[in-house]
């Protein structure tokens, strides 16, 4: 399988994740969509790395995974805090920034 196949797969997964981020109402679901998007990024990194024979991409994937884990922990902590304060995790109602 060529590089194109992997990249295409990653692109599709990315767009599915994007769809989730755009359409979901629950904050946690949005987070899931983000995880999907980041995951597809990792596929890209590893694929490029493998096909170019350079390990750098994989190193970056490792970094990405670490950052993602941190982000997930932090994001969920925020979700919990939000819930505590506003008794909801529906993104529609978290619009204090509304102009």
């Amino acid at each position: 399988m060529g590089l194109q196949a992997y990249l295409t797969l990653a692109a599709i997964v990315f767009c599915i994740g994007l769809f989730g981020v755009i359409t979901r109402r629950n904050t946690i679901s949005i987070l899931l969509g983000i995880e999907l998007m980041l995951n597809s990024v990792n596929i890209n990194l590893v694929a490029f790395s493998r096909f170019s024979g350079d390990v750098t991409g994989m190193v970056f994937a490792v970094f990405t995974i670490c950052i993602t884990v941190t982000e997930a922990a932090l994001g969920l902590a925020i979700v919990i805090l939000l819930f505590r304060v506003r008794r909801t995790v529906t993104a529609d109602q978290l619009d204090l920034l509304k102009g």
Partner: protein
Amino acid sequence: MTGDGMFALAALLLHALGFLVVALVVPLRRLGRPAAYFSILCAVGSLASALIAWQRHIGGTASRLVWAWLPADGQTLTSVGVLADAESTIMLTLVALVACLVQVYSLGYLSDEPPAALGRYYAYQSLFAFSMMGLVLAPNFVQLFICWELVGLCSYLLIGFYYQKPEAARAAVKAFWITKAGDVGLLIGIVLLWHQSGTFDLLEMQGLVESGALPLAGLSLITFCIYLGAVGKSAQFPLHVWLPDAMEGPTPVSALIHAATMVTAGVYLLFRTEWLFALTPDVLALVAWVGAGTALLAAILACAQDDIKRVLAYSTVSQLGYMMTAIGAGFATAGFFHLLTHGVFKALLFLGAGAIIHAVHSNNLPDMGGLARRMPQTAIIFLIGTLSLAGIPLFGGFLSKEEILGAVWAGGMTGPFVILLVVAFLTAFYMFRVVFLAFFATPAAHDTHPHDPPMAMALPLWILAVLSFGIGLYFTVAGPALPFGPAEAAAHGPAWLMPVAVGSAVGGILLAWLTYQRRIIDAGALAAAFGPLRTAAQKRFWIDDVFEAAYGVVLLGFSRAIGWFDRYLIDGVLNVVSAWTLTSGDDLRTMQTGRVQDYVYGVAVGLMILLLWVQLA
């Protein structure tokens, strides 16, 4: 030559120094008396310099000391400095003298003021003197105009010295605005003149006029505009209304304004530009007629006043009318001479009145009476001033009045001449009315015990008294060797002039004596005889009312129109604009849903468009 100019400059700058030090060194100003001493010191130095300058220039030589100022198009548009000649230095001396004496006098008169106010007063005084001197010595119209405005400002500040008093504040504003109305004319005139001649410089312009290089077209308008400035400043009809109200300031200030500064500025301006006015005889005739009318009007008004300062104020207006008439008749020198003598004796009268007020604590004539016995010095001094004003021989006023009457007669103006004779009669009458009522009539019930003023006030009074008597005596004894050209001498009127003039004055005195001292003629009956006139006089000929009405109708109406315009048109446009902004803001802000997802959505759409663009392009 230059060295001669230096003394005039020194006289000018010493007052500037006094002002700057007193104004800027706040602790000194707060102390009051030390500031006053410093200011007086400067004034004395200034007087000495002015005297020396006068001495140097008495022969008629002029010296110019100027520095370039306002560069324009690579050349100097105008300069700044001093133009010292016989006329300006003598005027300078008068200003320095009166300013110095008034400052000394104020030390006694204002001894009850709080120190800070006293310091402020002396700062104003120094600035006032400096401004007037700058005006007197101005070598060009620009400096003249600037100093002219400074004088207006200082009179505003000093008239409103008791700014806690609403009347004083109102009087100050009134003086400021009415003189400003004239100043607008002056400014327009100066600019028009510059447009015609291409220069601001007095000497250059005089040269142009004498060589006939100045185009005559439209010159009448220019001189009329300049005359407007003088009308405002010198309280000519109809802009004289501010001067009586200016009495709200401290009495020494009135002395300064009436005698040497402010009101004399207009006469001095016309005198300085006499050669220009000579080119426009119609304007000169106007000047003469307005001057005569003002003199009569003010004299009548003065007869009906009970406030001693108001009587003196109207007499000033009246005398300014005299000077203007002389200038209008074409004999500016006569007017200038009267200006000088008047400056001395009017300062004397005002300061004397100040001494009376200081003693009696009232401005009202009925509150006074029999003061001659209690304040003999003041009585003598005031009498000297009064006699001088009435034009009794041997006194300073006599000579200059004679000269004016002669000049007007020589100028062929019979109407003004007759008016001026009547005014001379009225002048003697109302001044002696004051003298009899204040000093000789039955004393009113006094709670206080009036006495002669303290040394600081008495000294200037005596100096002025000696001067006003001395001038008359000197010229009478030394003969008609007046320092004013042969034309003046030739203009001396016919032989019957002097007896008639003196007679009318004595007649006025006699009438006053009969009415107010002997009470042979009932004052009420006299008033009844002139019923309508008296009523009119008490109403000040409704001029103030006319002004008020004009203000009400014209100014308020105009303001309302402007207000309507502003409220409904300008604001309307603004409201429409702001409403539009608000609505569009409201519409636009719906984009800001505050939901992060929507922003992600926007990013995705943007990315999509970008990709589309890249791939389709």
